[in-house]
């Protein structure tokens, strides 16, 4: 064999510790005799001799995991779910897995006979982000090995619960502890598996932010204006916004006023804070924000529309994508882009808000359409009255492949004290002498 390959063999044997120099030499020799290009030959050898066992990682490193990895842990919950895939019914198993370093969700696309409490070692699994949350996926090539009980693995995920301020709670948290004031609370009757159930929904806020919460367990003695301290609430995601879920695992107690780390009155009366659109874009989803900007575009789909009476989808020519020919329900909306110089978001206004902002009722808009014999006339007229104007909207933001959208709960033309802003700026600008 030619000496000029020696450095390559050297390099390979360095990369493949424990593999004999001569083995590599023979292999390379063989490949080169078949006129395989050198780079391809090296790759082939690396692949052939590299240990088959994928590297093992810990849950805390899950976000920087390699494509395929192995992991040892305890299953703390598992649930069988029925799904319909391409017309065929299939089952998948999802739950939570923990090791000494953290907790993670998993989904198994095959039956691996997983049970709660099992200690397992899994090979050839991969990580996927689902709703911005890392999730371990067991696929067809995955192997599950059951291990005997290991006391070094914790039994309870609660030891990983973090205590956070409300604003810090994000989708990657599974369980969280915090404190806050209940600013809204409702009781809702729903039917779960044929049984009447009352769930509690509301909003909880501290001096940093606020989040929606829901509880499946009764919360006696908690009312609007109470401060509570809670431990081990589940973090769920709804339209990109984290929400707190109180279950039987969650414990909470009322917080006396003198132990509140924040001013209760201030939170209860706090006006929503205006934030820049740029900072809305940084987050995946925000609950109850207010932004102001200029309407720089009114998007097609604004104006008079018709909706399917069954599913509320927007329909064209009385044909619904899901329900065929239907009698449409008339509606009006504005879809626009709001830009404040730091960023741009889509905003959606429902009929009531559209009527106020556009300055015409739906009936008036229908008259415009009738007179000009065109539905586009309303869209054109909206553009004329809206583009360039200032608007403030309040609502939840969420990020999707179409961009960040705020569905408005309130919308208004922001008042502005031009003169005092002017004077503030002029103070900072002394005249040149």
């Amino acid at each position, binding site marked *: 064999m030619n000496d000029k390959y020696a450095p390559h063999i050297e390099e390979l044997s360095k990369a493949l510790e424990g593999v004999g120099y001569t083995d590599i030499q023979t292999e390379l020799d063989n490949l080169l005799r078949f006129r395989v290009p050198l780079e391809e030959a090296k790759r082939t050898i690396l692949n052939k001799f590299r240990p088959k066992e994928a590297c093992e990682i810990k849950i805390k490193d899950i976000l920087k995991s390699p494509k395929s990895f192995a992991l040892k842990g305890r299953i703390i919950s598992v649930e069988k779910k029925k799904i319909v895939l391409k017309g065929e019914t299939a089952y998948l198993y999802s739950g939570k897995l923990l090791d000494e370093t953290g907790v993670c969700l998993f989904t198994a696309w095959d039956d691996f006979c997983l049970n709660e409490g099992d200690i397992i070692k899994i090979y050839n699994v991969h990580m996927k982000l689902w709703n911005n949350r890392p999730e371990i996926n067991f696929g067809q090539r995955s192997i599950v090995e059951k291990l005997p009980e290991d006391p070094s693995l914790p039994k309870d995920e609660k030891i990983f619960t973090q205590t956070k301020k409300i604003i810090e709670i994000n989708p990657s948290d599974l369980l969280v502890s915090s404190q806050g004031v209940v600013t809204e609370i409702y009781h809702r009757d729903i039917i779960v598996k044929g049984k009447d159930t009352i769930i509690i929904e509301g909003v909880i806020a501290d001096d940093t932010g606020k989040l929606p919460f829901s509880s499946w367990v009764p919360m006696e003695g908690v009312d609007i204006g109470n401060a509570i301290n809670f431990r081990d609430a589940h973090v769920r995601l709804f339209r990109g916004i984290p929400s707190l879920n109180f279950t039987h695992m969650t414990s909470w107690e009322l917080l006396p006023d003198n132990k509140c780390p924040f001013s209760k009155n201030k939170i209860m009366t706090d006006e929503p804070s205006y934030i820049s659109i740029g900072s809305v874009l940084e987050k995946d989803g925000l609950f109850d924000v207010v932004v102001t900007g200029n309407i720089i575009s009114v998007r097609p789909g604004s104006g008079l529309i018709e909706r399917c009476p069954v599913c509320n989808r927007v329909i064209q020519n009385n044909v619904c994508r899901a329900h065929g020919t239907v009698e449409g329900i008339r509606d009006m909306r504005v879809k626009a882009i709001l830009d404040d110089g730091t960023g741009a978001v889509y905003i959606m206004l429902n009929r009531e808000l559209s009527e106020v902002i556009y300055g015409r009722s739906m009936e008036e808009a229908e008259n415009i359409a009738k007179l000009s014999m065109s539905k586009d006339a309303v869209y054109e007229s909206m553009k004329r009255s809206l583009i360039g104007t200032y608007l403030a909207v309040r609502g939840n933001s969420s990020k999707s492949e179409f961009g960040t959208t705020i569905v408005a709960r309130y919308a208004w033309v922001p008042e502005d004290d031009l003169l005092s*802003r002017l004077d503030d700026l002029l103070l900072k600008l002394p005249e040149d002498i």
Partner: protein
Amino acid sequence: MAEREIAQRLFAKEFNASTLSLTNTFSGDVPDMNPPNLLISPTGVRINRVFVVGVITEVEKLGSEAGNECDLWKARISDPTGVFIVYAGQYQPEAAIFLSTVSVPSYVAVVGKARAYEPEKDSVFISIRPEEINSVEGTIRDRWVLDTAELTLKRLDLLSEILSDQAHGGELSEHMRSNGPDTGSSEAVLNAVAFYGTDQNYISKFRQSVRKALLFIKENAGLEIQQKGDAENLIVKLLKELNNGKGVQYSCLLKEVGSQRVPEEVADAAVRSLLAKGECYEPKHGVIKLV
């Protein structure tokens, strides 16, 4: 997903001086997307889309191109520091129609893409290709000037800080890395400083033109607010006088106000403001009554 380009706010003076164009130097962008065409302004704004509000002072039909039915329109939109040039041709039919009918002078808002045209070396013309164009009220112009002044001053402050650091031997790019808002824009600032030679002298001169722009608006806004306040007082007075128990017909009210030489749009704005404040209401469509 690529984020939508921000509609930048900048004064005509800065916009028209933005002759540095960048097409593709920002690494790390989504590779399979067409990179946006960017101009870099003297203070380091990455300009793709802009939002301007000003007074349209001139509309000119540049005639049809040979063998082409469509017209090319050119408009001048003035802000307190200079003039934006807007071109609308066959691919901006809505804007072209707007320009052919707009009354001059009037307040307009434009959203559009920045274009650089370089007919020969060392002469670059910067213009706006409109995406949206619309007539707006004067208060929106005043607010735009304020917003733009705020954003411009913020940029000038950052720039001045960077330059003085650099003068004291600090590493320019080092500073940007620790303080810059994001890598794309810090790169733009570095490019701007290198290309335009932006210095403290430029910054203080620019601050003075921002000051002038603000004073100009102050005069204007003060006058408008005064006018509006006067009109509101007059309307309240008239509503009291003309009230027959059922309120006052809007058309009748406007006529009375008009006889006192208050322009109709001022009166209209004053009535709307009174309605919004809850000082009067509309018991019936077209009838105004004091609370």
